[in-house]
């Protein structure tokens, strides 16, 4: 389970072109640099540790955005299930991933390939996976680029050459079926990555690995990772509890804390009825699933946590969301979306300050108490057909791509999703041999919200109070990340394939352009030699997008689910 390969890689490294720009690789990427965010760079998945998904660059702005056009394109190839990656840029070099954890280093100004690395994956295992073979991006730091694989490894590549520095196996994916699809996080000499889990009957580990050597430093089990937590899983249900932390969290530099969101428990749908603490598949609150946790980066020990959804019975992970760290009126806040569409507002130590909801159609609870976090009027099912459709749909009130916080407008730009589901709950038995299988606990089908149609919306909201300033609706929920910039623009790549730019203050659409296929990944902005670029990945076919063709028809019926491209824009 913990094999390390220190010798030559199993994959293919190719260095294509000498990168001539004098500033290339001149500066290292370290924690301090990631923390400060940088003017021209995008050094970590969420932009900086503050996780704003914001670029201060203003060369592209509301007065000239209609001159935006394609500067260059890169096609990674073999884009099974499209592209979900968030590109990173350091000193004019863009790093991004395609499916099968293909990693590319490109000249950020021209798109010329500097190097590429294709890890050799256990393809027989990949063939047995569902949430696969996509990859959501890399981390950079200490001269390396770090990428996870769906067969349970974390790989470090030399930033300049793409050669393998180390390749550490962390998960027995043969047994657990899952691996890594999320981007890792680099901080303080450590690379952190969380396993897939949730509906998979494992225990959902989060790993920390030494950035220089690849040696595992610690592992935190999101399912019953402490003795106290074990007590919240009746009848040994922690053994197949699910959990995981499949999207990158962030790092609080002043407290040495890793903030991470954890996934839901398994089975997804329980038959306990109202008495979930003593009945059903997993009696109890099921710590630390559907929670936000703070771990000491050096030891992996739990410092504090808040369970957003105790005994989550709806697949509403906390793993999805960004931890937006902002300051208002002298107070530090952390804003974190839960997959349900409830947005949680915390203080520096994950003490709850407020809860507000972005989803308009939501009935899995009546409300969440904004002061205590208590779930009010929760819908706990018994085995059998559920009478009233459940909202939101299993794809969530929000999905795993990130919203954006603009420190100039003070607004949080976040996508909400309006869809529901019919379901029939059934008692299931976890399947763990010969390898783990999904443990859902219900038959289900997508359904429109009561009395209406499915739709998506980009909201401009006060991140602390949830007060809505403006909203733009989409006929199908966009599934990509959002970008805001110092040019007072908000960029949203939609599901049909169009990138939109809105005025950050008013929500007026100022520009749009088609990338040729739907979006379900990241978007960033960066600059090289004084020129600003917007980079977005296009390529549809992930889990949530699977529902689009049968549900919406139209362009989704002909849209490829095995293709994609990185498209980069600049002013003419």
């Amino acid at each position, binding site marked *: 389970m913990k094999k390390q390969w220190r010798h030559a890689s199993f994959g293919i490294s190719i260095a294509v072109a000498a990168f001539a720009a004098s500033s290339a690789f001149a500066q290292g990427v370290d924690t301090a640099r990631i923390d400060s965010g940088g003017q021209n760079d995008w050094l970590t998945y969420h932009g900086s540790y503050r996780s704003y998904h914001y670029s201060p660059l203003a060369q592209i702005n509301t007065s000239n955005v209609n001159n935006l056009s394609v500067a260059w394109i890169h096609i990674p190839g073999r884009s099974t299930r499209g592209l979900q990656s968030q590109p990173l840029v350091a000193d004019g070099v863009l790093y991004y991933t395609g499916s099968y954890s293909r990693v590319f280093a490109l000249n950020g100004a021209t798109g010329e390939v500097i190097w590429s690395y294709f890890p050799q994956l256990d393809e027989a295992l990949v*063939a047995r996976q569902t949430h696969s073979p996509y990859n959501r991006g890399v981390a950079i730091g200490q001269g390396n680029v770090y990428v996870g694989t769906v067969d349970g490894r974390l790989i470090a590549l030399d930033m300049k050459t793409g050669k393998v520095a180390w390749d550490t196996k962390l998960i027995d994916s043969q047994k657990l079926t899952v691996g890594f699809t999320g981007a890792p996080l680099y901080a303080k000499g450590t690379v952190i990555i969380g396993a897939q889990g949730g509906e998979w009957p494992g225990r959902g580990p989060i790993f920390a690995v030494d950035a220089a050597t690849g040696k595992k430093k610690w592992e935190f089990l999101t399912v019953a990772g402490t003795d106290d937590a074990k007590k919240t899983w009746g009848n040994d249900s922690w053994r197949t509890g699910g959990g995981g932390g499949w999207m990158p969290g962030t790092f609080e530099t002043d407290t040495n804390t890793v903030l991470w969101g954890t996934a839901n428990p398994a089975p997804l749908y329980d038959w306990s009825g109202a008495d979930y603490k003593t009945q059903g598949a997993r009696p109890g609150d099921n710590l630390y699933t559907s929670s936000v946790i703070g771990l000491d980066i050096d030891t992996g020990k739990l410092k504090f946590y808040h369970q957003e959804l105790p005994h989550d019975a709806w697949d509403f992970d906390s793993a999805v969301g960004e931890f937006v760290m902002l300051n208002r009126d002298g107070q530090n806040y952390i804003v974190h979306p839960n997959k349900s569409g409830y947005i949680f507002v915390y203080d520096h130590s994950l003490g709850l300050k407020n809860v507000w909801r972005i989803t308009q159609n939501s009935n899995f609870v009546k409300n969440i108490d904004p002061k205590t976090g208590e779930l009010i009027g929760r819908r706990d099912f018994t085995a059998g057909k559920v009478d009233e459709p459940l909202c939101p749909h299993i794809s969530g009130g929000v999905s795993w791509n990130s919203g954006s916080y603009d420190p100039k407008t003070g607004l949080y730009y976040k996508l909400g999703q309006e869809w529901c589901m019919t379901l029939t709950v*059934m*008692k299931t038995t976890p399947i763990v041999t010969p390898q783990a299988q999904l443990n859902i606990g219900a038959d289900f089908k997508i359904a429109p919200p009561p009395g209406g149609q499915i739709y998506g919306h980009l909201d401009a909201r006060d991140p602390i109070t949830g007060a809505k300033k403006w909203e733009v609706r989409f006929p199908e929920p966009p599934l990509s990340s959002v970008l805001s910039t110092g040019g007072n623009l908000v960029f949203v790549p939609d599901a049909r394939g169009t990138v939109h730019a809105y005025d950050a203050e008013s929500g007026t659409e100022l520009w749009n352009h088609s990338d040729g296929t739907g979006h379900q990944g990241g978007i960033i902005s960066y600059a090289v030699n004084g020129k600003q670029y917007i980079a977005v990945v296009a390529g549809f076919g992930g889990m949530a997008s699977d529902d689009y063709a049968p549900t919406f028809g139209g362009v989704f019926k002909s849209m490829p689910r095995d293709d994609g491209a990185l498209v980069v824009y600049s002013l003419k």
Partner: protein
Amino acid sequence: MDGFGPQMRLSSTIAALQPLILAALLAFSAVPARAQQQSAPAQQPAAPAAGNEQLDVKQLFATTCGWCHSDAGRAAGKGPQLMDTKRDDDFIRNRIKNGKPGAMPAFGTMFDDAQIDQIIKYIRNLKPDQG
């Protein structure tokens, strides 16, 4: 029941079925959940890959297949509708065993031919939900 073979093998079949029958009874009994979980760390698997065990395909859909095959296979969703499918048995068998890249996992190491026969039978017998 299809796939059970001649009468003289019934006793060995019953013997082979006992752990599964026990697990099924415990799963559906009115006894609190505690009784389900005996001592073994792993749950009784719903689909061990051997012999002629009766596979609870309905439960299998609610456990795993239903992720993509909506409404227990009756509706198109992430995966195609299975009810009234025009695909022949060979196609379905091959698809279950080998999957489809980026769409369906390969279950060939999970189910043997007899179990796949039961899955196909379930699919052929799917009717609209009576509500």
